[in-house]
């Protein structure tokens, strides 16, 4: 039952991910075509979600911006997942001074209020999508490194790992053939549950003007631009926020259903 629900949610998510890529083809207007004649028009038949202060179609811009908003977050999660797992495995399996040093480093990183560090890094590097993504990587990698390390420490003394070692398996073989698959499922679950956080952080950075730059279409930036027209054109904030909200809900619900399904099979809770 729970497994079925998780499968359904995953399929919906998959369809959504495809839609975010092809969605721009269904845009009724050119998302970058401004026409001052049509500035700040309320939703109507011609512009279903209204137009912004430059007369650009909000619906088209939401569809266009979906790719950046969603895939930049997915990219960040993919990077922190790989980097964190690698560091965690090295620290956990290697042990010794390297382990000590790496863990001390994660402690220092975690001593910063995470979003503040991201703002400062993005601010120092200068605004832009690449820099914002980099700052989010710095903000999120520690969770994965620590989790991977603790999972490796648990596995390290399992009989089958010891058996592999006694049989003369090479270190690389043990790490990638035996340990990595063992820690993958809880790590992946954490990553899925984290995507919505990263989407929100990314939107927060773009809202502050540290992410994608104008005139690019991106949800956080659209909301930020709409702020000045709060009194006259509230739809400029409402619709991109709604898109963001629904996306985050979708990832959250999927993540939760996945966790429930894994727990039912007796996987370790993360």
């Amino acid at each position, binding site marked *: 039952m729970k497994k079925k629900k998780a499968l359904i949610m995953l399929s919906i998510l998959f369809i959504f991910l495809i839609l975010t890529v092809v969605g721009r083809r269904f845009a009724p207007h050119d998302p970058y075509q401004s026409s001052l004649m049509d500035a700040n028009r309320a939703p109507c038949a011609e512009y279903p979600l209204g137009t912004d202060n430059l007369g650009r179609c909000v619906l088209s811009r939401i569809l266009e911006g979906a790719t950046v908003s969603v895939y930049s977050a997915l990219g960040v999660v993919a990077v922190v997942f790989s980097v964190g797992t690698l560091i965690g495995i090295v620290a956990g399996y290697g042990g010794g001074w390297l382990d000590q040093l790496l863990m001390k480093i994660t402690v*220092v990183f975690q*001593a910063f*209020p995470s979003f*503040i*560090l991201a703002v400062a890094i993005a601010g*120092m590097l200068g605004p832009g999508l690449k820099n914002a993504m980099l700052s989010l990587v710095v903000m999120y990698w520690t969770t994965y490194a620590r989790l991977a390390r603790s999972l490796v420490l648990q596995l390290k003394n399992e009989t089958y790992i010891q058996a592999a070692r006694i049989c003369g398996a090479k270190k690389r073989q043990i790490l990638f053939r035996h340990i990595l698959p063992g820690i993958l499922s809880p790590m992946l679950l954490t990553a899925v549950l984290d995507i919505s956080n990263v989407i929100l952080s990314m*939107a927060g950075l773009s809202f502050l003007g540290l992410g994608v730059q104008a005139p690019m279409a991106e949800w956080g930036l659209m909301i930020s631009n709409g*702020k000045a027209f709060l009194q006259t054109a509230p739809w400029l*904030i409402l619709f991109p926020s709604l898109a963001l909200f629904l996306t985050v809900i979708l990832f959250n619900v999927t993540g939760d259903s996945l966790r429930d399904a894994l727990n039912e099979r007796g996987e370790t809770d993360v």
Partner: protein
Amino acid sequence: MRLIKYSINKTGQLILIFLGITFLSFCLTYLAPSDPAEIQLNKTGVAPTEELLEKTREEMGLNRPFPVQYADWLKGILSGDMGTSLRNGKPVLDELRKALPVTLILTFFSMLVVTVLSVPLGIVCARFQDSFLDRTVRFITYLLASLPSFFLALLFLYLFSVKLRWFPVIASKNGSKGYIMPVLVLALSLSSWYIRQVRVVVLDELAKGYVAGERSRGVPEWQILFRHVLKNCMLPLLTLLGISFAGMLGGTTIVENIFSLQGLGKMAMDAISARDYPVIQAYVVWLALIFLAINFLIDLSYGWIDPRVRAGQEREA
């Protein structure tokens, strides 16, 4: 005596983390693409030649070896000298002095609202698990947690400033009343997370034997919940509150910028657009130090709250 030893150990760890934080913050300058000396020269309107740049770097101490610069900078922080702003040449400390209280007030009152709101609500939800109230609260907090805090802030602005006209749009023009909306926004977005944590912690505690025992002896329910269960939940609840403080501090940056409160977050964003690196550095160092201090206090309070922990601390030392 042992407790003192424990405190010394803890302080040692604290100093290590302090060094780590300041070191990392110091390294942040090296991320900046533009040369501070060049910014300095541009500000004064002098066309930067290679010779002048070299001279300015010398004056600003930028060509000394890395460890010397770090040590110097650290000494400055400890004596309250955060350098001078590249934007207006004034000491960064002056700007900090103005901004810090705003952020502190904002976080203090938000934390207060979070506690007052979340702890009773979480306890009641746990006590009446799966009741209508519990399910409603869970649903609302789930939705709230998926809502970006800046949308919540803008929604508040729209409702209470634009539509109802209770507050002016710019909070700083509004004295202490200007803090109401920012505090509520911060508190609500954090409560959505914290209420759920309180509920889970209390649920675990309610399943314990002594609760059933007290009920069978006829101890009033409110006394069980708010005297005994709450007391036993204090440690995990405090820890979670400490963790959530990081999110709260991050939230201040967004909220301050929306409501135009002149706190650290607003200071940082202004500094970022002016490429005023020392001010950005001051922002990250100070917020990290606040976070560190809060968690240190929470750590110390464990022993004060729970005698069992105190015994443990003494053993550890």
